[in-house]
Each structure stands twice: as structure tokens, then as C-alpha cells.
């Protein structure tokens, strides 16, 4: 069976545009370019380490991303442990102290960064081709021989504690912390912040960090992505030389994401966080969403882009471009192996906090209650489908796209079918997934703002019970 090619599909799309080519009417556009996502070359070292290479020879730069599956979902009883362990990797390694690592990396014109998300730890290196060998030596030290000295752990722990205190000054950060702790119940991995809280951070010590590292950093969990001015043969030799001797561990695979514990749909409730004198109210509205592997992924993308995922989306058109309440309103699904949050959000002028909530609720209802207009639907689908080439321009972008496919276990040719799947979404699909995945009667509404000014108006809306949070 043959599938229609992207070019054929996009040619059909182009034929639907008006055909006049005068200065007073928009030009007729040629067929959009065919989507050629880069071919991924793959190999595996004998210790199980997987290597993916995408040669891109335009600029003499190389991007290396070493991904260790697991990440913050393995934090266990200590939120923030994975992100903290990642941050400790380059604070002394292979006999170099923390400052020497930083100095040696930068001397090569390289950038080295280590971080963790819910699904893995990433150590990424960006380096001019001519310095790739010396830079990989440093990266190997950081990954294989981190010091985790007590004095450095204490130093970075104290810095993190200070940053957690200063985070309270940022209304957006305060809103996000409150939102996640409300949407996800106690015991759910997303209930507590990925970066930890003061309590979990204060107790961090060198042995915890080392323990987390030893139980998760094993070559059979590791994928190395190399993009840029390099061939598979070169990349394999360089990676093998430094990571080939890494001993396979006894643990064979990371714990899978826990199946989602059922999150009971609680009736709508409003939570206010006080920020006296605030010029704006920071609003977050939503509930637990849906997992990345959902067969409705494409329809949800179209629905959300139309609702709040583009400049012309309904939420932004309404709250910014019609009402002038905000600098920008949006919505989004946090796609993870288990359901992340669905969130609609905006920072709005204090005196229109209640009016803004009315508009948010109105748009959430409308996307469920009314079938979408065909022109609006078509525009949204084309926006999603045709912009894809722009996501594959730089070595960093290509490595990032590959990493995402890897995280969700998707094939590397996933984008080949993307345009067709997006263009196949119908108005009925949009309404069906809106009704299934966007709720209007069981929402968490978080507002960080000047309670004295906003409370009366918000109460009058009678959205649900109201609670003041610290």
C-alpha cells in the first residue's frame, strides 16, 4: 500500500488558496516544501550504550546530548534529587575542581550543561569541531567520574535554598508551584516541584547524590545523540573511546513511569494567593490532562492550538486583542508519559481579574459546545503542519527533536506521517477531544494577586468554593 506523500498533500492544500496574484490581494503561494526530516544513523556499543548520529555539515559545530533514562520520576521520597544530582555532575569531576571544570570547558569554546526532567537526565555539550576530543574528555569526566564532594554538595545545596526563597518574589513561579500542588494530589510525582522544596533540599547530602547517581547512571540506560559536523564513523570512535569501558550495571532498566493514579475530578474551586499591591493577577486554570501516547494526540494538538496555542488562538484573540486585559493568553497540554497538566493562563490587569475569568470560562465552554468553523480549523491545521521544517534548522533543534522522540519511544521517522495525521483532524474530532480533555465543571483556578482588590469580584462569579493559600 502506498501512502500519499507530503508533497502531494501540501500541493492539494495550496490549490485551495485564492488564485489572484495582484498587489491588492494576497499572493498565490507555491506548494509548501516537502518535509525531509534528517535521517538518523544508529549504532550500539558493546556495553549497551546507544548512539544516534545526524550529520549536519554547514557550520563546524557539534552538539552531543547524553541522555540517561529515568530522571525526576525516580526522585522517590526526596523531590529535587534528580535535578540536584544533575547540577552536581560538573561541580568537580575527574580530578578537576568545580571551577577548573568550568574554566576548561569554556577555554575550548564549549558549553556543557547538565539537567534533569521527569523522564531523564541530559548532559549536553556544544563545541566547535576542532575541540571535540578535549571537550568529550571533559564530558566523560563529568558523566563517569563526578566527585560529589561534601563541600561542593553543601555549597550547591545552600545556593539552591537561597534561590528557592527568592523564587517567592516571582508571581509566575508562585502560581505554577501552587497550581501543580493542587492539580496533582499528594503522592503523585508532579505534586511537588521538580526542583525540590526547602524541606527536601535542606537534607541533601553527598551520599544521597552518590546513591542516586549509582543507581541510575548505567550505560544500558544511556543514549548519546550527536548532531553537527561529524560522521557516524567519527562519532562512534570518539564515543567508544570514552564511554566504551563503562561497565554495564546490575539494574537493567529504569523504573517505568508509574501508571497514572486516577485523579478524581474535583468540583471547580478557586485558590487565591496574596501578593499585596500587585499590578497584575497571574491566572492558571485547568486540571490533569492526558498522556503523550494518547491516540488523540493529533486532535488535541489541533484543538489546543486553536484554543490557546497560537497568536490567533481564541484565548489570545479574546483576552489580548479584543479586551486588552493582558499581554498574552494561552493554553497548553504538558505531554508526559503519564498525564501532565492542561493549563490555560494569562497575567491580567488587577481590576479585570474577574472579567478575565469570565472570558476564560467562556472560551473553555465554547470549544466544547460549538463545532469549530472550517476556516479557523483549516488555518490551525496548516499552521501546525507547515511550520515543521523550521524546527530542524540548528544542531540543537535536531538533537532536541530526537530526544523528545526517544523519551516517548516514538520512531525516528515519526514526522513522516505527522502532516497527514494533523490534516486528517476534523471539526468533529476537535469537539470530541475538547469535551473529553477540557473540563468546565472541575477546574482548579489559581490567582496570584492583590486579594483585597480582586476577592469581591471573583466571589461574585460563584465559580466554586474559594480558598486562600499561602
Amino acid at each position, binding site marked *: 500500500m502506498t501512502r500519499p506523500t507530503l508533497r502531494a498533500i501540501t500541493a492539494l492544500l495550496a490549490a485551495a488558496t485564492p488564485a489572484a496574484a495582484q498587489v491588492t490581494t494576497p499572493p498565490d503561494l507555491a506548494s509548501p516544501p*516537502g518535509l525531509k526530516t534528517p535521517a538518523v544513523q544508529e549504532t550500539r556499543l558493546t556495553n549497551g550504550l546507544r548512539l544516534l548520529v545526524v550529520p549536519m555539515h554547514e557550520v563546524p559545530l557539534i552538539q552531543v546530548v547524553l541522555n540517561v533514562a529515568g530522571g525526576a520520576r525516580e526522585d522517590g521520597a526526596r523531590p529535587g534529587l534528580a535535578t540536584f544530582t544533575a547540577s552536581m555532575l560538573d561541580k568537580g569531576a575527574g580530578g578537576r575542581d568545580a571551577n577548573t571544570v568550568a574554566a576548561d570547558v569554556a577555554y575550548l569554546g564549549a558549553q556543557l550543561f547538565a539537567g534533569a526532567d521527569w523522564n531523564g537526565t541530559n548532559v549536553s555539550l556544544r563545541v566547535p569541531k576542532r575541540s571535540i576530543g578535549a571537550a568529550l574528555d571533559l564530558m566523560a569526566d563529568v558523566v563517569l567520574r563526578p566527585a560529589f564532594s561534601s563541600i561542593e554538595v553543601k555549597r550547591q545545596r545552600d545556593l539552591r535554598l537561597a534561590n528557592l526563597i527568592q523564587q517567592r518574589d516571582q508571581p509566575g513561579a508562585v502560581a505554577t508551584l501552587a497550581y501543580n500542588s493542587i492539580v496533582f494530589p499528594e503522592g503523585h510525582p508532579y505534586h511537588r516541584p521538580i526542583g525540590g522544596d526547602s524541606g527536601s533540599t535542606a537534607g541533601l547530602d553527598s551520599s544521597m547524590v552518590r546513591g542516586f547517581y549509582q543507581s541510575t547512571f548505567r550505560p544500558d540506560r544511556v543514549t548519546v545523540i550527536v548532531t553537527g559536523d561529524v560522521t557516524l564513523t567519527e562519532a562512534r570512535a570518539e564515543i567508544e573511546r570514552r564511554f566504551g569501558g563503562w561497565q554495564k550495571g546490575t539494574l537493567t532498566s529504569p523504573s517505568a513511569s508509574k501508571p497514572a493514579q486516577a485523579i478524581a475530578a474535583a468540583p471547580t474551586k478557586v485558590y487565591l494567593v496574596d501578593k499585596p499591591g500587585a499590578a497584575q493577577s497571574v491566572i492558571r486554570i485547568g486540571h490533569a490532562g492526558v498522556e503523550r501516547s494518547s491516540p488523540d494526540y493529533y486532535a488535541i494538538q489541533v484543538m489546543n492550538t486553536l484554543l490557546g496555542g497560537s497568536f490567533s488562538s481564541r484565548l489570545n484573540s479574546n483576552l489580548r486583542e479584543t479586551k486588552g486585559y493582558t499581554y498574552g493568553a494561552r493554553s497548553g497540554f504538558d505531554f508526559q508519559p503519564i498525564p501532565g497538566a492542561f493549563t490555560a493562563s494569562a497575567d491580567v490587569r488587577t481590576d479585570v481579574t474577574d472579567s478575565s475569568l469570565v472570558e476564560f470560562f467562556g472560551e473553555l465552554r465554547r470549544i466544547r459546545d460549538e463545532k469549530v468553523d472550517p476556516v479557523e480549523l483549516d488555518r490551525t491545521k496548516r499552521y501546525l503542519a507547515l511550520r515543521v521544517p523550521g524546527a530542524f534548522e540548528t544542531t540543537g533543534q535536531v538533537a532536541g527533536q530526537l530526544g523528545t522522540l526517544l523519551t516517548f519511544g516514538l520512531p525516528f521517522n515519526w514526522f513522516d506521517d505527522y502532516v497527514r495525521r494533523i490534516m486528517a483532524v476534523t471539526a468533529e474530532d476537535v469537539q470530541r477531544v475538547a469535551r473529553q480533555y477540557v473540563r468546565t465543571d472541575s477546574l482548579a483556578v489559581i490567582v496570584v494577586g492583590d486579594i483585597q482588590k480582586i476577592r469581591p469580584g471573583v466571589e461574585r462569579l460563584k465559580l466554586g468554593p474559594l480558598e486562600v493559600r499561602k
Partner: protein
Amino acid sequence: MKRLALLFSLSAASALPLSAQGSASRLRVPFVMDTLPNGLRVIVHEDHSVPVVTTYTWFHVGSGDELPGRTGFAHLFEHLMFMGSEHAPYPQFDRLLEAAGASNNGSTNNDRTNYIESGPASALPLMLWLDADRMGWMLPTMDIPKVDLQRDVVKNERRQGVENQPYGLVEDYLPGMLYPPGHPYSWTVIGSMKDLSAASLDDVKNFFRKYYAPNNAVIAVAGDVKAVEVFALVRKYFSDIPRGPEIERPKVASFSLAKDTVAVVEDRVQSPRLYYNWHTIKGGTADDAVLDLVAYILTGARNSRITQKLVYEQQLATNTESFQDSKRLDGDFTLFATARPGKSLPELQRIIDAELRRLAEEGPTQRELDQAKNTTESSFLSALESTSRKADQLNAYYYRNGNPDGFQADLDRFRAVTAEDIKRVVRTYLLAPKAMLSVVPQGKRELAARAGGVTP
């Protein structure tokens, strides 16, 4: 993703650090240029590696061109450029581009306003047509409700970035503390609420006629396009737009501070933060590059001098940052540090002042200077990976010195810097009087930095 054309050539297989390689490497971004009879200039850079295109239009007007009582106007006007034109009435601009898979944005600074569209290469004619329509036929559709709406949006942008942002109000204070009254950089790009409220429809019309004419604009197009086709499209869409008047540019008089300007402001924050702001030199000059490297040596990396002392060794601060703001007519250098909870600004001030003096006296080590240069050189390479960054940079170099492909010459400024340059520049600019602003938690003015400095 894979392209055949060679963008530029670098000697490949050397293990030497970049700065040690001398001038063998050449950065080159090939371009061709066209000028229309109405004065519109077009720069095209072909890059066929990915089927995308970026259109970056620069208008040579920024907040420095604003009139007294109208601060923030250039940026407010930027917002109005998306509100529709005669043949593409609101909200067609965004909708047509989205339907073609393209996105768009704009930004304003002290010297220029730029507008970007990027998307699949097939969207180029639409991008240019929309840009032409708003350059030639915007005023007939402009009205006061549109101005009022975007005035509200911009005020919200200001609230989000200034009033409701910890330390955001600093933006309101620093320019006026450093630059003398009337200097085009003595007010902020975002402007004051009062001036935003005062902007009228007549202001919009006058500003448009003066500054948004083709002879004050340069379009840079980069991506999977053919230059001849771009030129043909631009001539087709833009030729009927009449040339505008010659523009008188703002003038800056030289000035220097006789002594520190000192201020303390209270904000809703947990920890105090100290800002230093010095008068330096305009962008593109030799000393401007030296100041960029100075910023790196002070705070650019974990092992940079002030960062290492304040954040790492003594643990007095959570973060430090510094940068040379290379503007077209003048320049300034900002350094700030945020104290850890319980720490006061004089403790930070003592170390910052001592490190500045030490750098002026001893200069950097060769290794430090090489680290700064190599990091800078890598950032040049990164900029060449994306069509949008190349298009923006071609426009920036053209505005600065009339040559769009200024990449190598720009890099050469950094390669030429010596340890003696660093010493001289720190002594000349950063040991001179400055604006010093302490942001302290409400009611905690005793945490502020000391006028006249701290005894070492």
C-alpha cells in the same frame, strides 16, 4: 538539513584553541543587495540547507527618536503595525501567515524597530506582500480604537515586565540616573504609563509618515530562496510606495559624571540587589568589544572573577551579571548582583569594587582572556546556524557600518584585544563615576550600598 553550498571555510583539523589560530579562519555570509528607486534596500542571503525563510525588516527608528512626553511611542507603534492595512485588514496579518505555516514578531530598542516573519520557503511572497501593504497602506485603516487597544496591551506588557516583576522597576530608574536630561537614551524603551496614555492618533500618523517610509527601511531575507526572485517580488510589491522625507537623527553630546549618582528604591523582594551602571562607548568600536570581554571576565562564567568570589567562594550572592549595552550613538555597562537572604549590599559592594580595581591593575591572565575570546568566537558560530539570526545580524551590520557581511570584521575586534586593553578599559570606564542603585526589601533601606564606597 544537509546543504551543498559551503557557507564559509575554516581550517578544520587543528587541536589548537580558537584564539591561537590567527586569521586562517574566515567567517563569511554571502549576500547580494538591491536598492529600489524609493530608497528601500534589500539584502538576500541564500541558505538552501533547510526549506525555510526568514524576512527581517529593520526600520531605523527607536525610542531614541521619541519626542518629549511621548516615551514608549516607538514600541507602541510597533504594536500598531500588526493591526491591519488596507488590503490585509485586521486580523489578516496573523491569520494569513499562520495558514502558511509562518510565525511573526517584532521588537523595539533604542535605535531601531524590527519585524520578523519566518516559516516555510513557500510563504515568502505572502510575507513580502503583507510587509509591503503595511508599509504603504496602513494609515487608511488606522483609527483611535486600534490605538487604544494596543495602548492597553502595551501597558499590560509594561506591568508584566516592570511593575509585577521583582527588580523590574530598575528599568525606570537607571537610564535617567546615568544619562543627562534630553539625551536620547535617558528614558526607557517601554516608556512611562503617563506618556503611553498621551499618545494620539495624530502622533501615530506623523510618526508613520516620518519613519516608516521605504528609504528608512532595510529588508533582509535569508533562507531557501533565490536572490533574483526575492528582488523581483520586492520590486513588485514595494515600488509604488513613495519615498519619505529625509530624517534628522538625534544628536548626543559627550558627557561624563562628576561623581556617583546614588539612589535607593524599595521593592517587593526578599533580598537586596545592587546595580552599577557606567557610561561607556557606542557599539562597534574597539573598546566596545573590550567591554564585552570584560563583562565575561567579571561574570560570564562560574569561574569569572566576581561570580567566583560572590556566588561561589564567599556565598554572599545568588547571582551576578554584567553586560555592555552597545547602542548606536552611545553605550553603557551594567553590573548587578543579588544578595543572598540575610546579606547586605555593602558586603557585595566591597568585593565588586576590589575586583574591579584588581582587574584594572593586574589585568587578566592569558588563560582568562583566551577563555573569554574562545567563548565569544563560538557564539559567532552558533549565530550562523539559523536563518533568523543571520538575517537580523546582516541588518545590524548594515545599519552599523554599511556592510551587511560584517561577521569576520566584528570577530576581529575581539581577537585583537590584549590584556593591556582590558586594564585600560576597566580603568577608563569602570573606575569612573557611575550610577549606583540599591533595590532593597520594603522598609530595609539599611541594607543599601554605601555612597562613596566601602572601606576595603
